[in-house]
Structures are given as structure tokens and as C-alpha cells.
């Protein structure tokens, strides 16, 4: 069970097999860790009749791209519905259904659409379909998770058969980047209208242009898709004839199913299963760069942790090397901040981001004496911290147990409170559910290749995610400036200036950046091992290796 995604973005320019440069800069750890990170598995050969894939976070509640923003639904939907801009395994972007774009003025974005693209039913994709796909996300009845992205948009119009023009109230640098995920996915206008609220469900189905067509969804059992032999991107015409998704959430069952070859593969392999799967003869466990991040955040202004000195003290007693080794099975990276560097590693302004990251203070090593001094200095009214975690989330529980043991030495007491899934997901948005809690451990990921959205969400005084009423006017104005400029260099500079400031006073404890874990049966290859899979047609790359049976 994972905490709600906090849409963090972690982008890296990883060409093929890079070792550990992904999430941060801690050199010494890199040497100790023997894990090789792979952006993608070796290219695949022949056609495969059937592939069974697992979604370890459970069955999606919907596949409607407008409502998708979580592990399971994204993993499926990214193979069905193409977005306007495509994410690549290295977290860089490439043209998708839009081939190019221009900004005639800072408040206008013109998207030129690909010609000759057809929906699964053979009808051509036009600008009207793109407009309908974006516009419907503004309508409350759609219940889109992307309403905020459209807040700054005034009009979306088809200006030609294959051209869409978007106008903004104020210049908006993030809109284009949001087009890589479900927000930018295109469905057939008439089909969406007819399906209404049931679009994307087992009953309503989908009508998109992606490499796989949704054919069957037996709720509780499986989702099946077959290949789209007329897919517009010839290089990505699938080699897999039929693709079935299963929803095994039990770690033990998943491990057995993978080891017996009944399930061909899965992303997000839990660390407890990783130990067993590493030695499997049935397939291989790959580690990839990731945009996921684990951190501890204060949940109320009255929390002792709202004082940055207490947050620093917690950070100082945490033995991150031991944590990475024992809790994450070695498959994580220490990091200086809560935004993994994969988010910006492929950006046009990556040098600016890298310089900004390098200038941040180093990850502190365990130093109980210094931590104790900070606690004495802060002299919090309460010395007990109640920290929330989702019941059943072993990784978070173990991390908090580590923290609990360490804080005894510095005169703080950590109480771990395990919450039911609905309470855990609710606390992110409902202050009433945060009552009695001082902090929470969160696993988040950054979906879009830009660190700005995440920094803004955490530090803006008006953001619902700013739980400690953090306010630093300089930070806010830098972030606003970064959002308003369409010059990537300038946006990066503004962001890094904001980052340098909130890195000093924002109450948060970055813990680690877990790598992506992928298990793949030996008969298959070709899929990306990087976390970018979440928003790209990864299954279109699967093919046979000519080894293994089934």
C-alpha cells in the first residue's frame, strides 16, 4: 500500500546502462552499492502470442486518461491512449500525437497534430478530438484529476484540421509538460460523448489511438488488450498479440507466480520479493532509474517537526546507508532534496539544475550529538511525534522503526500510527484526518519532467499540500516567475534559487529515492526498466528472446 502520489518529477538523462548517477550525488554510496541501473532491457526479437503482466498496486478503478494518475491505471492506460507529447525512457520528451509546437506569443501555444493517425475503429484523429479530450477535463462531471492544469487556460480551439491553439491568462511553462501523461491523452470525441461517465470503465470502454486496443475488462480478474496492427508509429507496432493484466497485490503470491512463469513480468517489485526473484532461473530482475521519492513531511503547524531544527535533527539521526541496505534491499539512493534528479536530468536546462543541486548542502551522515544539540536549541513543547503510515506498507513501517530507534538517543519519541488506506489517502487533502498526527511518511513520484510543480505544491502558501503554513515570500516569487516564463533556462534559474532558499527552512526530511524494480520472464525483452514506463507505451516494445517455454 502506497501513500498517494505527490506527483513529483524526477528526470534523468540516462542513455542506456548508467550506474547510479540517477537520483542524487552521493558518491561514496554509489561505490558500495553493486546495483547496475538500466534504462531499458535489451532490444527484443520475435513476435509473442501472449504476455501476462501484473499490477502489484491492484486493479485500476478507471482507465479514463482524464482520471488516471496512479501506478496501476497509468501502467495500463499508457499503452492504450497516446498523449500529445511522449515521454522517453530517459525522461526526456519527444513528439507524440503533436509533431511540433510554437509559441507565437507568451500566452499562446500552437500544437501541430500528426497526420494520418487513426483511432482503433479506423476513423481519423482530428483537431476536434484533441479539443474535446482537453475540454472535457474542465467539466466537473468528468471528475478529471487535471482540473488545476487547466485553471490558467482561457480557450482551446481547433485552428485548422490538424492544429490546436491554446490560450492562457498568464504565460504557463508547465502546461506543455503536463501533456505527457493522461492529461494530454487523446480519445475519439463522439465516442467519449456517447460513453459519458462510463468512459474508461469496464462497461464504457475506450477509443484511442494507442498501440494496444482494450478488448476485455473482467472486474477483479483481468484486463485484456490486443495489438493495434495499424499503429501509426511503425517502429512501435507491438510484437505481442495479446496482453493481459492481472492484479496480484499479495507479495508472496506475486513472487510465486513470477517464479513459476505464470506471470511474465511486473514493475514495482516489492523489496521483500526482490530477494527471492534475484535468484530466479525463470527470469531476470532489472533495476532502473526512478522518479520516486520517500520523505517525511510535517502535517500540522503545531507539529514539533514544523520547526526546521527538529526536522534537521530527525534527518541527522537517520542512518541512510543502513536504511537503504536493509529496508530498500540496496535499491535506493540517498538524496539531498525531495525532488529526485531524474526529473530534470534530460531538461534543456539540465546544467542549471545540476549546478543548483550541487550547491545544496550534502546529505547529513548520522550525528547524534549534533542532532541532540538542535533539539535542545529548539526546545519543542512536545517531544513526542506521531507519524502516520499506511497499514501494510512494510517499507515505510521499517523506515519509521529505524527512525524510532534512533530518536531515543536525542530525547525525541516517535509514535508510529498505522492508518487504513482511505484514512491515509484522505489525510493528504482533509485537515480533519491529520488531527493528532505530527508527520507522515510518503512515497511520491514526479510524473512530468519538471521539478516546478512539486516545489510549488509543497511551498505555496495557498496550496492544500502546505500543511505547516510555510511561507517564504522569496520562494513563492521565484516559483511564480519560473512558472510564468517560457524560457527553460530562466525557469531553471528561478527554480534553483527557490530551491536554495526552501532547502534551508522548509520542514521536510528527504529519505531516499527508490530505484525502479522490474522483473521480466527470460522469454521476453525490450521493455524500459526506467520509471518513465508509467507514462509511455512500454508494452509496445516487448518481444521474444527465443528462450523459455510457455
Amino acid at each position, binding site marked *: 500500500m502506497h501513500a498517494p502520489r505527490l506527483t513529483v518529477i524526477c528526470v534523468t538523462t540516462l542513455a542506456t546502462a548508467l550506474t547510479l548517477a540517477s537520483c542524487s550525488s552521493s558518491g561514496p554510496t554509489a561505490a558500495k552499492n553493486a546495483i547496475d541501473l538500466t534504462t531499458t532491457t535489451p532490444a527484443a526479437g520475435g513476435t509473442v502470442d501472449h504476455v501476462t503482466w501484473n499490477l502489484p498496486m491492484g486493479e485500476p478503478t478507471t482507465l479514463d486518461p482524464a482520471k488516471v494518475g496512479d501506478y496501476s491505471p497509468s501502467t495500463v492506460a499508457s499503452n492504450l491512449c497516446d498523449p500529445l507529447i511522449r515521454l522517453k525512457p530517459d525522461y526526456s520528451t519527444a513528439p507524440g500525437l503533436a509533431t511540433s509546437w510554437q509559441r507565437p506569443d507568451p500566452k499562446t501555444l500552437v500544437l501541430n497534430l500528426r497526420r494520418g493517425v487513426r483511432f482503433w475503429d479506423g476513423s481519423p484523429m482530428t483537431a476536434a478530438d484533441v479539443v474535446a479530450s482537453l475540454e472535457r477535463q474542465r467539466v466537473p*462531471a468528468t471528475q478529471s*484529476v487535471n*482540473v488545476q*492544469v487547466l485553471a490558467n487556460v482561457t480557450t482551446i480551439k481547433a485552428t485548422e484540421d490538424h492544429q490546436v491553439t491554446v490560450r492562457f491568462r498568464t504565460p504557463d511553462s508547465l502546461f506543455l509538460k503536463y501533456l505527457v501523461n*493522461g492529461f494530454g491523452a487523446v480519445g475519439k470525441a463522439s465516442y467519449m460523448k456517447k460513453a459519458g461517465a462510463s468512459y474508461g470503465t469496464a462497461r464504457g470502454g475506450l477509443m484511442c489511438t494507442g498501440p494496444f486496443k482494450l478488448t476485455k475488462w473482467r472486474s477483479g480478474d483481468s484486463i485484456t488488450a490486443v495489438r493495434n496492427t495499424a499503429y501509426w508509429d511503425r517502429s512501435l507496432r507491438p510484437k505481442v498479440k495479446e496482453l493481459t493484466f492481472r492484479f496480484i497485490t499479495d507479495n508472496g503470491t506475486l513472487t510465486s507466480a513470477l517464479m*513459476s512463469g505464470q*506471470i511474465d513480468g511486473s514493475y514495482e517489485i516489492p523489496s521483500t520479493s526482490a530477494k527471492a526473484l534475484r535468484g530466479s532461473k525463470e527470469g531476470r530482475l532489472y533495476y532502473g532509474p526512478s522518479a520516486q521519492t520517500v520523505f517525511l513531511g510535517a502535517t500540522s503547524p503545531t507539529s514539533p517537526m514544523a520547526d526546521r531544527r527538529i526536522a534537521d535533527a530527525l534527518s541527522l539521526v537517520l542512518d541512510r546507508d543502513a536504511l537503504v541496505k536493509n529496508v530498500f534491499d540496496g535499491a535506493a539512493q540517498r538524496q539531498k532534496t525531495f525532488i529526485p534528479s531524474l526529473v530534470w536530468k534530460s531538461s534543456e536546462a539540465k546544467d542549471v539544475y545540476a549546478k543548483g543541486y550541487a550547491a545544496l548542502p550534502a546529505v547529513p551522515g548520522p550525528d547524534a550529538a549534533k542532532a541532540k544539540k538542535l533539539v535542545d536549541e529548539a526546545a519543542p513543547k512536545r517531544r513526542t511525534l506521531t507519524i502516520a503510515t499506511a497499514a501494510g506498507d512494510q517499507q515505510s513501517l521499517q523506515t519509521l522503526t529505524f527512525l524510532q530507534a534512533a530518536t531515543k538517543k536525542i530525547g525525541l519519541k516517535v509514535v508510529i500510527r498505522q492508518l*487504513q488506506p*482511505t*484514512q491515509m489517502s484522505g489525510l493528504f487533502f482533509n485537515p480533519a484526518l491529520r488531527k493528532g498526527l505530527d508527520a507522515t511518511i510518503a512515497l511520491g513520484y514526479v510524473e512530468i519532467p519538471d521539478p516546478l510543480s512539486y516545489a510549488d505544491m509543497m511551498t505555496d502558501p495557498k496550496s492544500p499540500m502546505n500543511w505547516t503554513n510555510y511561507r517564504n515570500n522569496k520562494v513563492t516569487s521565484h516559483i511564480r516567475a519560473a512558472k510564468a516564463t517560457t524560457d527553460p533556462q530562466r525557469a531553471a534559474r528561478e527554480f534553483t534559487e527557490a530551491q536554495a532558499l526552501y532547502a534551508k527552512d522548509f520542514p521536510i526530511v528527504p529519505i531516499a529515492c527508490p530505484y525502479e524494480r522490474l522483473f521480466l520472464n527470460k522469454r521476453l525483452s525490450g521493455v524500459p526498466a526506467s520509471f518513465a514506463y508509467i507514462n509511455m507505451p512500454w508494452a509496445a516494445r516487448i518481444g521474444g528472446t527465443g528462450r523459455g517455454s510457455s
Partner: protein
Amino acid sequence: MIWRFVVRRAAMLAATALVASVAVYGALFVSPGDPATLLVGGGKPPSERLLADIHRQYHLDDPFLRGYWRWLTALFHGDLGQSLSYRDSVAHLVGDRLGNTLFLVAFAAVLIIGAGVALGTLAALRGGWGETAVTVVTTTLMAVPTFVMSVLLIWGFSVRWGLFPAYGSGSGFAGRLEHLTLPALALAATWLAYVAQVTRSAVRAELASEHVQTARGRGIPERLVVRKHVLRNASAPIFSVSGVAVAGLIAGCAIVEQAFGINGIGALLVQSAAKQDLAVVQALALISVVLFVGVNTVVDVVSALLDRRTPLEASA
């Protein structure tokens, strides 16, 4: 006489179901958390308006009594409600899964009654090493929790030897038989052992009884003695303990279905309870209670018929 008994048991069933439904509804009602946030979970923080919209659509803000009444009256119209997390009708969800669960329970019941009774009878009649072996095996089985048994079976029979599938429910009769063998074994193990032990002691007691001694003394063939006198008289306690065992399976299903990834109502109950999907949990709780009490009633009636010495009034 028997009809009055059945009617009274039916009334009890209805009362139990009602109490259980209030308890389940109440428990989910007071538990903290907002199911709407889980529904829109992930990605970006949902807008207040979106959450309010879902709350209105699924009546999440209704006071307890109004919500409960809405559910109850709909039920009498044959409407089990709409699932929040599946965005589908509960009747449809349950209908899809009920077959798997019933197949699993029936399979386990056959194992429990068939193998349990056979093992117990064999142990009692043979005595000696056979009896010791059965006692040791059944005592061990009783001590192993269902989820551990599941893990052991999966590890041995599907990962090591590849004899059975590790997960899933299969389709068609043959497919289900293949997929549900290990889950049924895991589900049946403890109860099978229990039934075997009860059978063994019941058969032993009958063997030592006076009428059996008399029958033997009269020179009636041993085969007939065993069938007519021993087994017939031992059948009532064996049947009643088997009934309890089968009713207990309904509760045990959730663990096994989760462990083997079976798409049944037990797994659905676990998942829906975690998501506070009220309508689904309510319906499933009701179905479980009805099944449980129903099986128990059938067992009581049949036991009473098997053994005329059991007074019907007292067992009610």
C-alpha cells in the same frame, strides 16, 4: 414440527442478518477516512469540488440512519447499490465472483467430509500404526494456520514442482478444478484434520459400545456391524461437526482468496473494506451471514433427522 423449527430458524436468520448489517454499516460509518480520496487517488491533489461531487453522487455525507435506510429500502427492491471503487453495480460484482467462491467452498467441503471421514474411520478401525500416523498428521495440520499452509502449498506444488498453477481461478469446470485444488486444500486442511479426529473418536466410542459388542457376539459379519451399527450411529456427530466446518469455510475464504489471487467474494470483501466501499461490504457481509446461518440451519435439521434422540426444541 419440523416446519415450525425451520420457520423459527428463518426468522432468526433474518434477525441476525439485520443486526449484522447495522453493525457493519456502523463500523464503516464511524471509521475515519474519505473513500472519495482513494477513488481519485494519486496524481495531483483533487479539487474540493471534485470530492464534493463524488460525495453527493454516492451519498457519502448522509447521516447514519438515512444512509442505512436508503440501503435497506433499495435492498427490498432488489438493488444492492453501486460500488464506489468499481463504479459498477454491486449485484454485478458479486455475481461475477460468487461462482468462484462457491466452487472453492464446495471443493473444500468435499475434501473435508470425504477425506476427513475416511481418514478418521480408517484410523479408528485399523488402530495401531495407522492410527498413530493419522493422529500425528491431523494434529500437525490443525496447528498450521491457513495462510502458512497457502504459502507452503504454493511453494511446493507450483514453484518447485510446477504441478498446479500458483494463482487465479481458471475458467470452466476443468480449469477451475486445476486452479482451485491448492486453495481448496489450504482452506480444508485445518477442518479436515478436525473432522478426522472427531470421526475417529466417534467411531471408537461406537466400537466399544454395548450394542456393537452384542452384534458381534451374535456373529453378524464385521462389515455389516461397521456399516449398520458403528457408522450409522457415529454419523450424527460427524455430520454436525462437518457442518460447522463448512460454515467456517465461508469466513476462511478471504485469506485463501487473497493468497492465491482468486477472484472471489472473500477477496472482494477484504479489498472493499480497505477502500470503505460501503455498498459492497454491506452486501457481502449480508451474504456471508445468510450463508453461514443457512448452512448451520441445514446441519441442525439434518442432524435432527439423522438422530431422532436430538430434541428439535432444544437445538433451536
